[in-house]
């Protein structure tokens, strides 16, 4: 029974993910924004801030080396709300009623969406790393390092995406959701070590930044890039990712299937 159920979840999730990818293939214009925006932001941030050497960290390496992992994770944070908004758009359409009236897995709508979004996160990270390489960002361990960084970006992005899915379904109104989701996304990127070491932040920010999953993800990428100690950020990020995928994930699925 359990095997049959999980088989059904996997199959239906694959079908839903396939639907998303087919939509992108039929409407390639929808790919321009998620693929071009990160590159533009990378170039802007690096051009404006990349040559600063005002932080203590700058003594160890260039600020550019410090900034680029921050931008990779900032991009995941900024992309994640599209998951919630897309799910909310589906929820309000006749298609949601269609799905709810089918004998399909309830969780598949979310899992399938996350699976196709994982691909977007991965492609974005690869593009950013390629562009960062041109800007002088070096990953010491080469291929394993690059794969590791992409994995961190995807895992982190999905955990935020699933949270936005739950929040969007909770908020219900698409316009409110858009504002409510994007603003904290920007805030959590700044309340972290993405742009400056925690020790350089305003005093009240420091405890928040230390607990922030953005800090964990960014630190982990920095460690992977420079082959530094990775155990603590890995553990911290692992807890965050597991917690967010599980708790908001289950709540979002419940919210989706709930009969009105």
């Amino acid at each position, binding site marked *: 029974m359990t095997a049959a159920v999980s088989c059904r979840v996997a199959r239906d999730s694959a079908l839903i993910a396939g*639907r998303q990818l087919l939509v992108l293939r039929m409407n390639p214009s929808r790919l321009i924004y998620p693929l071009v925006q990160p590159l533009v932001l990378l170039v802007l941030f690096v051009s404006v801030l990349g040559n600063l050497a005002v932080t203590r960290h700058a003594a160890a390496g260039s600020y550019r080396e410090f900034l680029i992992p921050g931008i990779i994770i900032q991009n995941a944070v900024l992309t994640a709300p599209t998951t919630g908004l897309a799910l909310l758009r589906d929820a309000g359409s006749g298609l949601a009623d269609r*799905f709810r009236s089918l004998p399909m897995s309830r969780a598949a709508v979310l899992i399938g969406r996350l699976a196709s979004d994982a691909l977007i996160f991965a492609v974005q990270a690869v593009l950013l790393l390629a562009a960062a390489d041109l800007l002088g960002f070096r990953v010491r361990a080469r291929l394993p390092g690059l794969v590791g960084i992409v994995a961190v970006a995807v895992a982190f992005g999905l955990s935020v995406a699933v949270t936005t899915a739950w929040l969007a379904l909770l908020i219900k109104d698409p316009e409110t959701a858009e504002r409510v989701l994007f603003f904290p996304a920007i805030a959590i990127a700044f309340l972290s070590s993405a742009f400056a070491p925690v020790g350089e932040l305003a005093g009240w920010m420091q405890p928040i930044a230390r607990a922030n999953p953005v800090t964990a993800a960014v630190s982990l990428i920095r460690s992977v890039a420079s082959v530094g100690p990775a155990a603590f950020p890995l553990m911290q990020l692992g807890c965050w990712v597991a917690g967010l995928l599980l708790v908001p994930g289950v709540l979002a699925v419940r919210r989706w299937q709930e009969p*009105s």
Partner: protein
Amino acid sequence: MAGVVKAFGEVTAVDKVDLTVSPGTLTALLGPNGAGKTTLVRIIATLTRPDAGLVRVLGYDVIAQPAQVRAHIGLTGQYAGLDEALRGRDNLVLIGRLAGLRRRQAYQRAAELAGTFGLTDAMGRAVRTYSGGMRRRLDLAASLMTRPALLVLDEPTTGLDPASRQQLWAVLAQMRAEGTTMLLTTQYLEEADRFADVVHVLHRGQIVASGTAAQLKALVGGQMAEIRLDDPAASSAASRVLARRLSLPAGEIRTDTGAGRLTLAARDGTTTLLAAAAALAADGIAVADLGLRQPSLDEAFLALTGVTA
């Protein structure tokens, strides 16, 4: 279903409804906007949970066994359950596969239904390029991918132009001939009249009348006599004359003073009509036009509920 109740806040959308749909028949739920039709349909399709009452669909309880219910029904909702960004074929295949069909089965069934619904040429086009009628037909086809034992349709023809409506009716008639059990909601008496084996009239969440279309019409009082006066100013006087000479209660005669039009139930068909004409002539009230016609939904509601729909 028995004793089904559903309230949204202060509004009781469905109020103690008992309803049985016999296999192989087409049952129509007839009622105006806000009568509770959509809520009933959503309860049957497991999209809304009833507050009270028992609902069994093909023997499965909608609350305890929603998965079994979903496996055996097809739903065509009021809003098309389609992905606009995908092609017609992609939609049918996706929905068929999510309903449990294998890949090849889904493609075969999609092609078969496209033929039945006259959509074969449109299968490779994105749904957003479809007309309203095509969209409805594709949506209906999607509901039929798994050959459901019960097909539930919520206002399938609302918002369609007459030609598209005719096409959809033709498909429904064919499905009915094939023995598909169907439950459809409609605002149109004509639609219920034309297709349904059984009609339930829903008003403010309650079933106020049930029967075949013919039985319901008899309840309404059969045909209506409509008389248009030469001089609209004479309307009130004419109404009084008719009430007196035909010994009708004043409430039986609807008077539109602006148009000079009087409407009453023609209980004895042309005899009533002729008697009314004679009565007016005797009092010297000139008649411009008169005739018999079928009762409209408004009149059916007036007769069955005592309030205007």
